[in-house]
């Protein structure tokens, strides 16, 4: 008689590898081997994990179609099964998987569209916080503005892409209308925020992602602006900052010198 540990090991192994026979001792009421019955469990597990990914990556699914998506999702789920029963957190590795997934190589923007969807889900479930009121900065003396450090809103995510991934994502969400996109028109960076209940995805003008990366690292405003300027000659801090404040990217700031 197998121990419970042996039983569950054999059951789980056969569950995720359909090429294996069903384990001995898994039977129907008459004590006979029952592959059709065992297949219910195989099918349940595969379907549940595929559907978890389908609900998190709807634009990717629309771009590649149902059959392709389900095959890709199944292969990902077998290679990287969830490590927690909290499936709203599952799929962090899916964009990187798509990057390595040979059959998707002809869609080089696909992993970045998946990154935007992943950022959207993370923002949706992130901790709540009131966004920083831009008026809070208005009383600050100019000489101290350079030393401001921002606390990022918990929902804030930045997704950089060498492709027009944001345009492609927008065309392939619920109400989107797909149309021609020039893949060589340059990259797009996306800002994902959720100041209140609603997740918003904004286009970040050139230099915006560099500025945010530096601010996320905890650099003061002047140093972060300098970093952005190194990469983008005509970077204008005031316009960027106004846009970020308005979007709800920050939750707080401190103006003390470090």
């Amino acid at each position, binding site marked *: *008689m*197998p*121990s*419970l*540990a042996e*039983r*569950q*090991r054999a*059951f*789980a192994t056969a*569950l*995720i590898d359909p090429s294996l026979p069903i384990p*001995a*001792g*898994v*039977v*129907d*009421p008459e*004590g*006979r*081997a*029952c*592959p*059709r*019955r*065992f297949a*219910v*469990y195989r099918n*349940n*597990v595969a379907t*549940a*994990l595929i559907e*978890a990914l389908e609900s998190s990556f709807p634009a990717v699914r629309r771009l590649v179609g149902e059959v392709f998506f389900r095959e890709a999702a199944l292969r990902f789920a077998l290679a990287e*099964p*969830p*490590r*927690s*029963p*909290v*499936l*709203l*957190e599952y799929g962090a590795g899916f964009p990187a998987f798509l990057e390595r997934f040979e059959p998707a190589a002809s869609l080089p923007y696909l992993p970045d569209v998946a990154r935007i969807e992943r950022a959207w889900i993370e*923002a*949706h*479930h*992130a*901790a*709540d916080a009131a966004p920083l009121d831009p008026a809070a900065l208005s009383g600050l003396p100019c000489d101290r503005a350079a030393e401001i450090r921002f606390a990022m809103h*918990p*929902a804030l995510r930045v997704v950089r892409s060498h492709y027009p991934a944001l345009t492609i994502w927008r065309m392939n969400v619920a109400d989107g209308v797909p149309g021609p996109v020039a893949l060589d028109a340059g990259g797009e960076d996306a800002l994902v925020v*959720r100041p209140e*209940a609603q997740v918003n995805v904004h286009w970040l003008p050139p230099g915006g992602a560099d500025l945010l990366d530096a601010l996320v690292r905890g650099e003061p405003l002047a140093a972060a602006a300098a970093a952005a300027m190194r990469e983008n000659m005509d970077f204008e801090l005031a316009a960027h900052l106004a846009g970020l404040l308005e979007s709800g990217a920050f939750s707080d700031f401190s103006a003390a010198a470090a």
Partner: protein
Amino acid sequence: MAMSRDSNVLPPRAGVGLKPQHYATVLEERPPIGFFEVHAENYLGSGGPPHRYLTAIRERYPLSLHGVGLSIGGEGPLDRHHLLRVKALVARYEPGAFSEHLAWSTHGSAFLDDLLPLPYTTETLSCVARHVEQVQEALGRQMLLENPSTYVAFAESTWSEVEFIGEVVRRSGCALLLDVNNVFVSCTNQGWNPCEYIERFPMPYVREIHLAGHSRDEDDGGGPLLIDSHDREVDDVVWSLYQQALARLGPVPTLIEWDAQVPEWTALEREARRADSILLGSGRVPAARPPRKVPSRAVAG
């Protein structure tokens, strides 16, 4: 908003499994539903719309939390991290009941996202009873254990399912969630008599009932194989088994579960009304059943 203590108790009325597509309707129309139930794992994010809606609905209705990921029948140790997250959720929402399944779903560190069947052996019994005790100790309250839907049996089983469940109750001090659809699905698939199952089930410990729809397939020999699909109305046979159970039990909180192919709200409300009318006709005056404290020292096997 302050809630009265009584709102922590599930009333002996029909409740409905809460789905995101019905949040707005529930808050706008305030339908006369006894309680709502959610899967704990769907509310373990830090914040955002799911918690906003659940908080608003919890302020207006009693709530039941139903876990689908603790893997109580798993041979390995319980996932402490996950258990602590569930504990925090229970503390946050103060549900009228917390329930989990007689099943396993995690192997090694991989979550297999299905309620997998257990061999009914004395070894499994010790494992399940120990895990139920650990959950009750962590949550500081009695939990409800749900009878499973199963599609296979195990050659090594030595206990009947009903006796096994009764013994888990005796050892761990837990209460029970009787899923009447699971009774019919398992009895059909295992060749048991569902009326006998209901007759022998340890009814004094049942605090909640689940009702759901199932689909039909065929097994290896062409016989009927029922699938616990939660994707349609409750079957007429299940309604009559429900009446049989209530005749023994009196009115208990009864949940309509509909998790796939989720219909318009009105279809769920119709099912809830049908359950309510049976509950009202089931005789005995309902007694409020506040959640019991965990026995200070659980009896070990």
